[in-house]
């Protein structure tokens, strides 16, 4: 028996390659969606049979109509529903009865309108499941397949794009029409184009898996407004990239801090949804883009040109200034200026004028014509030290723009190295740009875009070439014990575990905690301190006090009995004065950690991605400096190490300005353990270890404070 996933994948084939389709709810009235759809299907020379279904028309556009879909004797592969939403369930039911497995529901008026719309959507989902059907939508623009064996424009977008290798999946119908318009102007073609609307049944994840096996698609673009199952999205992306090498680019709209809860924890307040998405996409290999132009700039690089083997670029320009700008941008983006070989230098010396600059960036100077460009580009591409070429042109009065463009296209075609171009200017260079676009040579308005695109292509190629040979370390966890403590707390309707209890949980996962004890009296405090051994730290423990320092609830570096007594009393007094109503459980006595670097580790639950781990520079100013980054849990050792090295202040840990090198390995171990804790114990809503004190190399690290929100 096939799984739901397999059923959907099978049904998607008929959505993209139907041999026959029915437009259910078709009408003759021009200017309406149903009529636009049938017109589009017929106009684009769909390679199959079309059956309009209309309760009152005998024919539409000279094609015979059927009153009900069940009246059609032929097999129908795909049903496109354009009836008003109030009757879609009836239409879908009949489709099911007829044995149709695939549908596109264009109609709006479902979940997106709330109220009855939500019920209508549930109804169509139920009908689809009953018959093993799959559908795209509802509330979508439709589906386009440019494959000449199909030529399906089952949408009401006016334009049918030209055939290409880029697949575009969008949650927004309105954006689709704009993207089609944009792409047409830039001569960018698509393989498949899908607006998936409410994704009540088929989601972007199903579509991604379908496109994984689509031979017509080389690059996948995704526009999302909300992510329902982030982990599945990451899994799909990882699999596609690993198995096929197809890049996935995504725009996720809504870069505001709406996801950042006003939580009690630092992690909660720092972990905005945007940061998490950045992290998740990075981990999954999805290239996150800022806007449509950014997305297409990168897409054309990945689609039309080979991936660079390394990051050494040659810049060829006919004006010095833009060459310098491009160099700056490239270095900023992590690229390098190639050092030309002696042979290249010789050839440039011989073939280029004496006033030309033959070092990288190569300035063929303002009066350069096609021949000079030819020499400069072809020799650069021949050079073993060059992995990619940027070609810049500024229109001077003698510049033969179209000829140069043609030359670039010709030269680029002979080498397996990427060539990107930037013809700077407006009207004068327009025809040259068209030549480049037609020949699928990426063109960019700005050198910065050129550089960013290549940098992304390079990082992507690195990712493809990375072989994960990591040996998984064995670690032991007391998951049952941790869950027992947590479940008990939940049973007692508690939503916060203070330090002494949080530490118990962390101990179960092998995190480095110090000897400690909870004292309920002055004498007990002294006794515990004596047992642990000085110096010690004393902290107030109360469910009503989250920021202990702020209320004078912490005393550090207690060296003897006298100080223990005094510390205990001063804490009690401070708290009584500042928060008299606080219920005090006791004083937590713990070994004092020697001085080290303070870092923060945290866990938060994201609605889309589940457990997310945070690491960064910590202490009480963590929310001011915000030098933190995020990953979706769980992480392995190499991912944890990368996470550590990705923070801005990493040099503080690796020994800057005379500071000692810190035990990064112990942080790495702690991260791996904490992510496993997050995955194993879903009761934990948020977890803060702030600070985790990191000592010198080989001396480990220690949890100095922790709290858990349930």
């Amino acid at each position: 028996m096939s799984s739901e996933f397999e059923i959907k994948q099978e049904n998607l084939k008929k959505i993209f390659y139907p041999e026959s389709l029915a437009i259910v709810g078709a009408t003759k009235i021009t200017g309406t969606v149903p009529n636009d759809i049938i017109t589009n299907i017929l106009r684009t020379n769909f390679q199959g049979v079309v059956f309009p279904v209309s309760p009152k028309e005998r024919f539409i556009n000279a094609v015979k109509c059927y009153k009900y879909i069940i009246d059609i004797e032929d097999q129908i592969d795909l049903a496109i529903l354009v009836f008003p939403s109030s009757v879609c369930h009836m239409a879908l039911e009949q489709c099911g009865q007829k044995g149709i497995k695939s549908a596109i529901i264009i109609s709006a008026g479902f979940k997106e309108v709330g109220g009855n719309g939500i019920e209508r959507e549930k109804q169509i989902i139920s009908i689809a499941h009953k018959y093993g059907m799959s559908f795209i939508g509802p509330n979508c623009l439709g589906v386009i397949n440019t494959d000449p064996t199909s030529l399906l424009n089952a949408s009401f977008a006016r334009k049918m794009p030209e055939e290409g290798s880029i697949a575009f999946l969008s949650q927004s119908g309105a954006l689709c029409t704009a993207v089609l318009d944009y792409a047409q102007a830039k001569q960018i073609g698509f393989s498949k184009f899908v607006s998936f609307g409410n994704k009540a049944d088929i989601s972007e994840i199903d579509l991604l898996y379908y496109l994984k096996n689509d031979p017509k698609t080389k690059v996948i673009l995704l526009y999302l407004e909300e992510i329902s199952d982030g982990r599945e999205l990451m899994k799909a992306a990882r699999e596609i990239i690993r198995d096929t090498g197809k890049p996935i680019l995504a725009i996720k709209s809504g870069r505001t801090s709406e996801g950042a809860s006003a939580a009690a924890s630092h992690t909660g307040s720092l972990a905005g949804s945007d940061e998490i998405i950045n992290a998740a996409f990075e981990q999954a290999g999805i290239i996150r883009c800022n806007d449509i132009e950014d997305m297409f700039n990168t897409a054309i690089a990945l689609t039309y040109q080979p991936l660079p083997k390394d990051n050494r670029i040659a810049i060829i320009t006919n004006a010095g200034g833009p060459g310098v700008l491009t160099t700056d941008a490239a270095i900023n983006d992590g690229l390098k200026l190639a050092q030309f070989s002696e042979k290249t230098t010789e050839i440039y010396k011989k073939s280029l004028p004496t006033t030309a600059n033959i070092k990288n960036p190569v300035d063929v100077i303002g009066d350069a014509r096609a021949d000079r460009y030819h020499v400069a580009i072809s020799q650069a591409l021949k050079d073993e030290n060059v992995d990619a070429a940027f070609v810049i042109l500024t229109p001077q009065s003698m510049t033969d723009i179209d000829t140069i463009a043609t030359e670039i296209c010709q030269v680029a075609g002979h080498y397996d190295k990427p060539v990107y171009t930037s013809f700077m200017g407006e009207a004068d260079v327009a025809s040259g740009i068209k030549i480049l676009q037609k020949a699928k040579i990426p063109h960019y308005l700005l050198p910065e875009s050129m550089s960013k695109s290549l940098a992304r292509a390079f990082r992507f190629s690195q990712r493809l070439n990375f072989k994960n040979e990591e040996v998984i370390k064995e670690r032991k966890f007391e998951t049952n014990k941790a869950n027992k403590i947590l479940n008990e707390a939940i049973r007692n309707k508690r939503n916060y575990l203070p330090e002494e209890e949080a530490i118990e949980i962390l101990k179960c996962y092998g995190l480095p905690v110090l000897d400690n004890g909870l004292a309920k009296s002055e004498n007990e405090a002294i006794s515990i301190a004596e047992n642990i051994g000085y110096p010690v730290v004393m902290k107030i423990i109360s469910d009503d006090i989250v920021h202990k320092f702020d209320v004078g609830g912490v005393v550090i570096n207690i060296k003897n009995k006298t100080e223990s007594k005094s510390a205990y009393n001063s804490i009690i007094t401070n708290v009584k004065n500042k928060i008299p109503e606080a219920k005090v459980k006791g004083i937590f006595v713990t070994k004092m950690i020697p001085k080290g670097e303070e870092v923060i580790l945290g866990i938060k639950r994201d609605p889309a991605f589940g457990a997310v781990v945070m690491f960064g520079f910590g202490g009480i100013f963590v929310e001011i400096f915000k030098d933190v980054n995020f990953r979706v849990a769980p992480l392995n050792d190499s991912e944890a190490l990368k996470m550590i090295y990705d923070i801005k202040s990493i040099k503080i840990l690796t020994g800057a300005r005379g500071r000692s090198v810190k035990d990064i390995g112990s942080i790495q171990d702690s991260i791996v353990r904490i992510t496993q804790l997050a995955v194993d114990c879903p009761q934990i809503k948020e977890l803060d270890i702030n600070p985790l004190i990191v000592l010198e190399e080989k001396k480990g690290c220690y949890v100095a404070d922790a709290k858990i929100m349930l």
Partner: protein
Amino acid sequence: MSHRKLNQDEIDHLIKNGCTASDWQSVNVKQGFNPINIKNVIFSGEVILGNYTGNFELFPGLKCEFGIYNCTIHNCSISDNVYIKDVKLLMNYNIEDNAIIYNTEQISVTSESTFGNGVEIEVLNEGGGRELKIFDKLSSQIAYMLVNYHHAPHFIKNLNNMIDRYIESIKSKIGLIGKYVKIKNCKQIQNVNIGPFADLYSVLNIENGTIASNEKAPITVGEGVIAKNFIIQSGSIVDSSAILNNCFIGQSVQIGKQFSAENSAFFANCEGFHSEACSVFAGPYSVTHHKSTLLIAGMYSFFNAGSGTNQSNHMYKLGPVHQGIMERGAKTGSFSYLLWPSRIGAFSVVVGKHYSNFDTSLLPFSYIVESGGKSVISPAMNLFTVGTRRDSKKWKNRDKRQDPQKLDLIHFDLFSPYSIGKVLKGMDILKSLYEKADKKQDFVLYNGINIKRLMLKTCRNYYNLALKIYLGDKIVNQLQNMSDNISFDNLKQQMLSISFNFEDWIDLGGMLVPKSESEKLVSAIEMGGFDTLTDITNHLQNLFNKYDNLSFAWTLGLIEQVFEIKITEFSSQHLLQIISEWQTNSLKLNNMILNDANKEFDSKSQIGFGIDGDSEIKLKDFEEVRGTFAENSFIKEIQSESEQINKTAKDLLKKLNSSK
């Protein structure tokens, strides 16, 4: 600026730089002049030069020295820090600081010119008779009056005289290129004044015009543009091979992509791409984007043309004599066709081809479709569509005018004394038609168009809904302005202190005014009550600012009509009824709008797509994806609005009850 003659050293230097002059004594220079950056220039006539030291970035990374290179200059005064290179002829211009001009064939003033001011364009009637004299401070209000009030010839004459006097002050033999203007790679610019910060590139041929650019709202004229006898006001963009002949382009208008227009005026925030316009008066926010669209002999505002829209203004054997009016907010569906003369009511949608002449001015918010060869109107059906609601919100937010001096005065209210006045009349008409119709009739005929008899009552009810909402909006607003002193007594007192006249309102080129005010203005101008255009503009501005007061006053008249009382008889019961009906009907309308998502009728109004008619979203609109561009943001807005209505009604009723 004090100038002096060139000294011999300077002349020698210039000659060494390859320059020649018909008479070096006619070349004057500013103190501190340095000839170093003047090369290969031919001087003739009276020339004044400034200082040209320093450099600037022509392209990112490409630095150039200020100066004048490879040009022929005749009778020009050229201020400081300009870059003028490769200009074959620059004649009779004053060029201000920091102008950049290169690779251009000819920029000249050939004789005394008014630079497009004073050109009479034949709007609305292709055969003439409604000439509009354009000038660079023309507002849509003045234009509207000039075009439409030919029944008052003295008024037209006096107004035109004022315009002529203004134009006289602009007349000159010397043109102006303002500071920071850029002119690049252009062919011919003749008798054109170019205001500061304008950007002209690859222009083909522009002649007899004014580009009234300024720093706050610069103008762009781009590649392939051909324009003759024109005015372009601040903040506008005309590019990509647009062709304009006898045209007025207002503020923040965008024209391009081979759009061609003649004898047409486009006011604030209009857009014209791909299509054609002939004898068009396009009031604010008129938009035409599509390749096969023709707008001809019509008056439009807040208008959206579907692709392939067409009209016909010809009368058999008599030529182009007809004209049409699409009142504010009207739209046409794809490939719709209208036969002029016709008049389409406000906020109506026209779909299909119509071969009869009709006037639906008193049936606003309607759907006009073609059914079996007949033109059929469904009054009020466009009240509760997504398109209408979105349009009404979007216009104000899309006012692109950056110029602090906004010439066109625009009111945006969907429900106003203008539209609701028509609704009221529409209700009477529908009632009368229903009472007179035979039950056997499927259709009734009204002003050349058919209405389904069965819909007469329903549509009248929908109009009533709009009326109640408007009334409630006004009263609720008035109450809320009382802050902590909300009471029936206070409201009544305010009402009694206002004198009002319950009359028709008109849409004066985007500004909504009582008809009597426009008549008063016409009379005053007829009688010579205004000396200058500025006086008239100030008067209009004052009137514009009084909108809230005037519209509230009109509402009092509406109350008298609706309740059949005198305002002195207005009671707290009436007030409670207004608020309660406002709440009920507003919620009803919102729910009906949400239901509109189901409608198959108008593809443009489907919420799921957000395509609201101007479907060509430009690149800059992609930036919306950075924010919270979500299909259901509109839904959420409506739902949140409903919540707010409930809350407001509850609060008000509580306060009113407690103040008794």
